[in-house]
């Protein structure tokens, strides 16, 4: 389907070559380079790993109506587990990358490219069958202010513990039971 200036489709194994040329990083910045490297080199294998079906991994590609790939995103179902054995089903945003020339840019209708991509991710999470738990989280480098801002705009406003001193883990909020 076509939006105002974009269309989104799930990725397929045939997209490996397309992803290999996707540029979204200043490669001099290590944490940016690792995002780009993951998308270019590992994401297709991650998305179509036959041993990972249980997690329902999803790869989404966002194109302009002119056919330019402006965004790549992926997510899957995971189980968060505490030491005492407490578990929570959740969705991990594996990666969300906006092409270099689209970073900070909007479509003619005013929507930011990053918001379109992130909305596609949230829409996809919300439409999975069987339904996903509404807990959605992302692991983001603490210097990646742009991605942290996108996460905040899309409701990942709560801060969990850090999986690594340099990486923040942000999650959608919860109401008191």
């Amino acid at each position, binding site marked *: 389907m076509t939006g105002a200036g974009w269309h989104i489709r799930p990725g397929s194994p045939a997209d490996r070559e397309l992803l290999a040329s996707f540029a979204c990083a200043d490669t001099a910045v290590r944490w940016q380079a*690792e995002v780009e490297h993951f998308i270019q080199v590992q994401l297709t294998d991650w998305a179509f790993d036959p041993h990972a079906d249980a997690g329902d991994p999803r790869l989404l590609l966002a194109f302009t109506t002119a056919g330019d790939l402006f965004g790549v995103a992926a997510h899957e179902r995971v189980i968060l587990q505490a030491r005492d054995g407490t578990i929570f089903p959740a969705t991990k945003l594996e990666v969300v990358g906006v092409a270099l020339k689209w970073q900070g840019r909007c479509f003619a209708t005013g929507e930011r490219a990053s918001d379109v991509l992130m909305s596609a991710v949230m829409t996809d999470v919300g439409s999975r069958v069987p339904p996903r738990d509404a807990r959605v989280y992302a692991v983001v480098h603490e210097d990646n202010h742009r991605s942290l801002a996108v996460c905040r705009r899309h409701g990942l406003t709560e801060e969990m513990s850090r999986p690594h001193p*340099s990486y923040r883990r942000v999650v959608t909020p919860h109401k008191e039971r």
Partner: protein
Amino acid sequence: MIAAWPVVVRDRIVQAFKPGVSPAAEAPFRTLRRHGWVSQGVRVTLFADRGLAGQMTFFSSLNVMAARLARRGNAPAAERVARAAADLEAGPEFAILRSLLSELPDREAEQVVSGQFPEDGPAALTEAIRAVASRTEQVRANDILLSSPAEVVFAGRIAEVSDRFVLLVQGKGTATMVPLWMAGAARRDRAGDFLALVADQLDGASAVVEAVPAIDIDDTPGADGFSPFGRGDARTRSITAEDVRLLAGEPQSLRILVPVTIEG
């Protein structure tokens, strides 16, 4: 290592020299200048869509220490530290930072100097601030004057936030409570933020305690093999007891800003 924010505006230097006076006061700053207790600073020409948007001067944070030394009556030390600040400001790290600040729109350069990164700011800006902070810490470590017992810095990461306090934890595990309003004034009041408390001795049992933004200058993710991607690192899925409490409620509905249809 977590270090205090390495650049400051003039106001902070004035307040270090004359606590309690208006930070905009001209006379104290003129005194500092006249005696060589403050460096010249780095001037940035700011541009906006329609051309020049004014100028801003920022300083090495070492000047704050020079001002404190001057206040305590140690003029030779104040002069020496101000010269160290001037050397830093003439170095390549400040040149890169100055160049990046001049490219920022509107008042974002001022925000950066006061400790805030713009949401859409270039990643290189973080690296530039980190480089200046790292160089500043090297200078401090190599100069006995800059580790004065009259000034104690407690820098760490905010581990918890309550309605009145934040819990500030150092890397080695020691912690202190900081009033939420102090952390908020330093624009560091969320879990995960870096904050520094500077206790500046006034006399035997009293001090001015200032909350200032901080930054982690050890950018070494990956050194222990961590990757946020893939399924191999269980740290991305393991949670703490505090996380359990956070996640225990009913998840709220997902927020979708832009109506989007996905093919297939």
